[in-house]
Every structure is written in structure tokens, then in C-alpha cells.
């Protein structure tokens, strides 16, 4: 049976990496395959999309409007994939990365789904970098026309250059693929679309003269605020902004409320108010 697959996520999450592996594995298994990457016009930080078709018959056209498998890796890309979901689609999503509120926006569209906490499995058992390969593992369990061996071989082939520099990547990626496949085999379907709960990020910090507020939904972690502070009151914190990069935090014992950080921030992600 031909399969139409769409994969969506943020640039940098590895969408095109797993799309390439899937494409090459399908070819290795003797299938016809088409792959169409599609990025936003942004140089960075846009939604990254991959259209893939796998079939035993010739594929006349690489695009499609409804997909059999809809994969989404980020909250922002949920909106993008909405139109590709039909009643027959299987939606696969990273429930440790996507907010519960965002996936539930698609409640009316989603009839079948696999919620895989890939980011958590990756960070707890392997490394956060392989969350995409876990998702690929889940997908591999659905695509019976492509042998698992071909998936395994292609992962190692595609990452060969990186493995050469860091040999431990071989085992990490292999395990990630297997964990994904096993997760899919043992998956018990449910009616409840689970996801990440809202962050409890502290937004505002105060001293007796100044209130300093940061906005994780806008901050891109460029560090211009850190460099512009004349008293070096700002550093990067452990908590993350919407892009998943570190977010600044302020030491209110030092802050003099000059507002330089606020002025330089290209994204309007800091607000400084004198009391």
C-alpha cells in the first residue's frame, strides 16, 4: 500500500534528518519513494516540513493534501499539519515537547494517534539530541513495507560522518531507533491527548526600584541583553525560551534599571520598569 507521510517540526529538531533516513531506507527496501523538503523563507527558526511518499508503484507527484501518517515534533507545527489530517490518518507526536493545550486544539481532527514522550525518553535514557530518531523508530513500526534492518543500516550510514567524530553516537542512535519501535509495539491506544503542562517559568524579578520582566514566548537567546548590561547583571539561566535555547535571568542585587537590555533586545523579550 502506498503511504503518504508528512513530518513537521522546528528547524534544528532534525525533521529533515529523519526524512532523509526514511527516504533512503525505503529505497533500500526496493520501494519507490519521493521526498520534498520544505522550509519557511526564514534563515532560522521557521517550521520545517517534509513530504514523503513510499509506494510499490510509480509516484506521479510529490505533494499531497492528506497524509496517512502525520508526524509533529513541536507545538508551533501543530497548526501547520492540521490540514493534512483525515479520518484515516495516524498522528504521531512528541508528547514531551508539545503542550497539551496545543495538541488538544486538533482534538476534532485527530481520530488515531500515538503520543510518544520522545524528548523525555531521549533525555532520561540516551541524549536529548536523539529524540527525532525515537520518533523515526515509532514510524518504522508502522511502515511494514520497509524492513527494520534497512532502517538500522540507513541511520548509521546517514550519520556516518558524525559517528566518525563521536563514536558513541552509533550506539545512541541505534538504541533510540529500537526504543521508538518497541514503544510503538507496546503502545496502548487511549482517548486522551496528553502533552506537556505549561511551564512555571518565573517571569518577573524586582528590587526596590525596578521591576524586570522576561518573556520566554519571545526570547530567542541571542545574548545581546547580556552583553549590553553595564553592570553585568544578566546571565543565561537553566530555563529555556520557546526555541529551546537558554533564556537570560537577572541578578536584582546588581540591576540599576538603566533599561539598556530592554532597548537592545530585537524581540521585545525584556521589559524594565522603574517603580
Amino acid at each position, binding site marked *: 500500500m502506498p503511504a503518504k507521510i508528512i513530518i513537521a517540526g522546528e528547524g534544528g529538531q532534525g525533521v529533515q534528518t529523519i526524512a532523509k533516513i526514511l527516504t533512503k531506507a525505503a529505497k533500500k527496501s526496493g520501494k519507490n519513494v519521493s521526498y520534498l523538503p520544505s522550509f*519557511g*523563507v*526564514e*534563515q*532560522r*527558526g*521557521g517550521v520545517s516540513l517534509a513530504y514523503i511518499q513510499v509506494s510499490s508503484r510509480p509516484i506521479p507527484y510529490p505533494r499531497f493534501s492528506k497524509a496517512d501518517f502525520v508526524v509533529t515534533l513541536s507545538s508551533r507545527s501543530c497548526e501547520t499539519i492540521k490540514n493534512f489530517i483525515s479520518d484515516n490518518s495516524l498522528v504521531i507526536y512528541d508528547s514531551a515537547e508539545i503542550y497539551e493545550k496545543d495538541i488538544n486544539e486538533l482534538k476534532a481532527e485527530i481520530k488515531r494517534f500515538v503520543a510518544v514522550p520522545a524528548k523525555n525518553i531521549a533525555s532520561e535514557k540516551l541524549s536529548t539530541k536523539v529524540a527525532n530518531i525515537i520518533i523515526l523508530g515509532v514510524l518504522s513500526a508502522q511502515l511494514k513495507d520497509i524492513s527494520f534492518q534497512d532502517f538500522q543500516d540507513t541511520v548509521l550510514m546517514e550519520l556516518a560522518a558524525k559517528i566518525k567524530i563521536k563514536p558513541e553516537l552509533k550506539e545512541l542512535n541505534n538504541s533510540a531507533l529500537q526504543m521508538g519501535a518497541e514503544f510503538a509495539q507496546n503502545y496502548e491506544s487511549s482517548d486522551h491527548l496528553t502533552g506537556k503542562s505549561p511551564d512555571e517559568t518565573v*517571569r*518577573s524579578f524586582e528590587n526596590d526600584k525596578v*521591576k524586570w*520582566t522576561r*518573556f520566554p*514566548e*519571545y526570547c*530567542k*537567546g*541571542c*545574548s*545581546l541583553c*547580556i*552583553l549590553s548590561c553595564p553592570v553585568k547583571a544578566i546571565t543565561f539561566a537553566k530555563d529555556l525560551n*520557546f*526555541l529551546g*535555547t537558554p533564556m537570560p535571568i537577572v541578578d536584582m542585587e546588581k540591576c540599576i534599571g538603566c533599561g539598556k537590555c*530592554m*532597548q*537592545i*533586545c*530585537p*524581540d*521585545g*523579550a*525584556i*521589559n524594565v*520598569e522603574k517603580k
Partner: protein
Amino acid sequence: MAENNNFPKSWKKSSKPHKFCPGCGQSLALKNLGFVIDELQIADKTVYACDIGCSLLTWDMFEIDTIQTHHGRVVPTMVGFKLAKPSAITIAFMGDGGGYAIGAQHLINAAMRDDPITAILINNANYAMTGGQMAPTTLVGQKATTAPNGRDWQKVGKPIHGPEMLAEIAQEGSYIARTISTDIADCKTKIRKALQNQIDGRGFSFIEIISMCPVNWHTDALQSLDFSEKEMTKVYPLGEFKCPQKLA
């Protein structure tokens, strides 16, 4: 939730975070522009045009009527709009590849004709959206994907000085200046003058804004600040090259 005074009121809230890369100087210039539009209270009569290049990422930046054109055509498009509706404030926003190379004829002729629009051009020393090719503004010796050994001026000429060139052909009553997006006060002052000149109905207004492009320069934040504030301003001095007396 705390109020965010760091968001110009003329920015469209629903399209934020905007689409520029982390630390992009062009987006900082647009924040400065947003605040000046707020200050002058002209949002409801302003029309904004963005070009092709990273500037097109602003098709939904402002809560302002917006049009997008190809390479430098923001200028004649806004001139046409202004002719049809003289009460409008028209802003033509473009990159250095669009304004100084691919569509340079438009800027030059608008300056010569003294068309009463405000043109803003981002000088980031490369063609950014397409991945860092050499632009007319690329510094001598600066590497670009199409100049892997650095710009060789004997082969491709020296960096273009837009404001200086336009000041030579512009008429009295024009306002022509260069600023840098990270000097917030200077940048806002010059944007304000370039808009005020149009509001007063005096003539052509043009500013070039030096801006960081960390992605294509392959620089971190500190190196980006250094390159734009030290290296670029050495070649491209900040200043006003033509300023009507009333604005001085």
C-alpha cells in the same frame, strides 16, 4: 501578566515572535521604526512596503497596510501610492542587495526626482536571505559564499556608499543619513527625521541602517557587535549627508 512596554504598539502582536534570526540587527531596526511610528502617531495613515530578501519577513510585522515587492521596487511602488494619495505616509523598506544592486535604478531616480517618500535600507554587508553572497556593501577582504577568499576590490570594485552617492544627486529639502541599529538613540532620531521630512512635505528621505547578520557572518553576538560597530562604521561613517535646515 506583566505589561510589555518593549513592544511597539504598531507591531502586530499575533505575528510575534517575528521571523528574524536570533540577534538579527534588521529586526532591531524594525523595533526602532515601530517605536517612532508610535511616537509620531502615524500608524493609521502609513503604508509600508517590504522588498524581497530578509526584509520580506515583515509582511506581517506591523498593524499597518503592507505590500511586498521585488528587489528595489518598494521605491516606485511607494512613489505611486504617494502620488495617488498624497496624505499617506509611505515607507519603502529594503536590503542592500535589492536597493544598491538588483533594483538600484529605482533609488537613484527617486532621489533625483525628489520623490516625497521615506526609504529605509538595511546594510548587512551581504545578500542574507539567499545565504550570504557578496553584496555591493561587502567590505574589502570580507568573506562571502561568492567571495571565499574575501572581496577582491581589483576584480569587483569597492564597497558602495549609498547615502553619499544619493546626496550628490538629491535636491535641497532631501534628508539623507546613515545610522546603525544598535545605537538606539541615533537610529530612532534619524528614522524620526526621515519620517518628519515626509510629513512636512519637503522631499525625498533616505536612511541606510547598518545591521548585524550573525547567521551569514558566522559570528557570535559579541563578534557581530564588534564587526558592525567597529569594522563597518570605519568604512561606512554614520552621519547626515543632507539635512533640511528645519530638521537640523
